[in-house]
């Protein structure tokens, strides 16, 4: 049976750092501040924290407890975790999302992660020294348009790193990276944040103090909190930031034994992510970029709500102007983004490896290379064309998350049953989970998710019916084919499991 069943976490702190690393991604530093500026500044934090309490934390409890429950049956991926909870034969096909999303997101996310790796290299190599702002932007544009071979080289390096670390297993690979990467990420974030906030305007340097940017980011426009769009944006940000609806949390939690705590672990990892996002994430790109470029220019750059342009096309130039410290700052900034990225992409590999190991007896090292091979093939169109990248991002990285989360909370609260579900959450708990969460999980979170899903429907229709380029169509076809292929594998696995009487 499972080869990884005996594999597990080396320590509790390692698990929490890996789980927090799974959640902390590039979006914590780039997307969150951009979303806050677009949606009411400081007032955005109100719907954001409400969504965290009413949807984020409840889903964390649900996903951790579903994962640990699946671990009892030696299952580490959602198709057969759902199967064990739902009993009806169709639930496992909803669980396919928990493998599909990880593969599809990893396909484009590793490419994004490789940008951080290459920009860290360029920072150390002094590539941006002496460049004007326009030249740095042109360099970035040339890079993403594949005007050089570097994007492909760094992407391959990044894929190999991910695959090799995954092949080392949970405690020997993923946990070690989290234990090094997360503390460094927080340290680098604090140093850069303090540098950003203490930025002083001077005749030949910054045009604003760092606090001007902080003031702009946090000045609340309370009229926006009644806007439906702002609430959907806040809910979306909570989804992205906590890595909910992916299946990776289930997988990590499935390696816990049935009497280990999940309540405190989930709280600790979830809040650690919030610290990185809300505190560190708001201290860096906006204060520094507004310091040098002014409010108007930065507002234009963050329209669209991604922050990628500032992170990769603006900050390198500003760091280059800081002299020797600029090299260190560049290395810290892109190193921080790389650590944020790799701790997330590693989490995307483990459900696939778990699925192959649990159901087909493929050892984790071989499973890691299979995963690496699949994301290499699927990543090619994402590297070649932004249209394919955007298709993967929208269908797998946005819509699939909401659908999966909606399904899992219905399964947990209404099919598995809230009595059993609440007992699962509290089994071995090191903290007392407030009873209000039982009510929230059963009633509030599903309604919240339905509203988020309804809010996404116009976008789904628009995106499904709009024409796209050859690569865009190829991406849609590949996503459909991938989902269908995983369904076939799940079907085959279910036949094998039945013959071995797993449940």
């Amino acid at each position, binding site marked *: 049976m499972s080869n990884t069943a005996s594999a597990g976490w080396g320590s*509790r*702190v390692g698990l*929490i750092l890996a789980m927090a690393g799974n959640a902390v991604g590039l979006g914590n530093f780039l997307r969150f501040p951009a979303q806050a500026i677009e949606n009411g*500044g*400081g007032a955005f*934090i109100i719907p954001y*924290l409400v969504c965290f309490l009413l949807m984020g934390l409840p889903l964390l409890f649900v996903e951790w407890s579903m994962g640990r429950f699946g671990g009892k049956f030696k299952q580490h991926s959602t198709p057969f975790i759902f199967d064990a909870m739902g009993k009806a034969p169709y639930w496992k096909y909803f669980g396919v999302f928990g493998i599909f999303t990880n593969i599809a997101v990893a396909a484009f996310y590793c490419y994004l992660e490789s940008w951080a790796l290459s920009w860290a290299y360029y920072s150390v190599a002094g590539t941006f020294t002496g460049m004007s702002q326009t030249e740095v932007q042109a360099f970035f544009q040339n890079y993403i348009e594949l005007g050089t071979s570097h994007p492909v080289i760094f992407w391959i390096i990044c894929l190999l790193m991910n695959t090799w670390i995954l092949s080392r297993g949970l405690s020997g690979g993923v946990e070690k990276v989290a234990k090094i990467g997360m503390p460094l990420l927080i340290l680098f974030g604090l140093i850069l944040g303090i540098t950003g906030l203490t930025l002083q305007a001077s005749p030949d340097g910054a045009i604003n103090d760092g*606090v001007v940017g*902080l*003031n702009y*980011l*946090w*000045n*609340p426009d309370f009229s926006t909190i009644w806007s439906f769009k702002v609430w959907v944006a806040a809910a979306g940000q909570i989804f992205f930031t906590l890595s909910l609806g992916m299946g990776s949390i289930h997988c990590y939690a499935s390696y816990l*034994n*049935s*009497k*280990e*705590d999940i309540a*405190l*672990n989930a*709280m*600790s990892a979830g*809040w*650690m992510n*919030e*610290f990185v996002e*809300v*505190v560190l994430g708001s201290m860096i790109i906006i204060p520094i970029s507004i310091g040098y470029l002014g409010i108007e220019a930065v507002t234009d750059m963050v329209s669209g709500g991604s922050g990628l342009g500032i992170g990769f096309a603006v900050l390198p130039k500003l760091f280059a102007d800081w002299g020797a410290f600029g090299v260190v700052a560049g290395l810290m900034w892109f190193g921080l983004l790389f650590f944020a990225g790799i701790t997330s992409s590693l989490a995307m590999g483990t459900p696939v490896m778990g699925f192959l190991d649990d159901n087909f007896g493929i050892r984790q090292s071989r499973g890691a290379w299979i995963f690496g091979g699949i994301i290499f093939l699927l990543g090619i169109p994402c590297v070649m064309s932004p249209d394919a990248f955007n298709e993967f991002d929208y269908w797998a990285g946005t819509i699939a998350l909401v659908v999966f989360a909606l399904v899992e909370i219905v399964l947990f609260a209404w099919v598995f049953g809230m009595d059993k579900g609440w007992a699962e959450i509290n089994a*071995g708990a*090191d*903290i007392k989970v407030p009873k209000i969460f039982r009510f929230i999980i059963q009633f509030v979170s599903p309604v919240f998710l339905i509203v988020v899903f309804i809010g996404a429907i116009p976008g789904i229709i628009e995106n499904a019916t709009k024409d796209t380029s050859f690569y865009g169509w190829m991406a849609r076809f590949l996503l459909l084919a991938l989902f269908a292929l995983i369904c076939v594998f799940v079907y085959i696995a279910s036949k094998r499991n039945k013959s071995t009487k797993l449940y």
Partner: protein
Amino acid sequence: METPALIMVIVVWSSVTLITGYFFWKVLSLPKHPEPDSFPDNDEIEK
């Protein structure tokens, strides 16, 4: 900084930092759980 922004920053940053620190400290300070398949009878008795 303007007062509303300053209030938001202080309240949100301090709350999030304290809650994060509290839960992580709790994780670090709690004693390790015994192995699930261990029995108290098998434990060595300190003399």
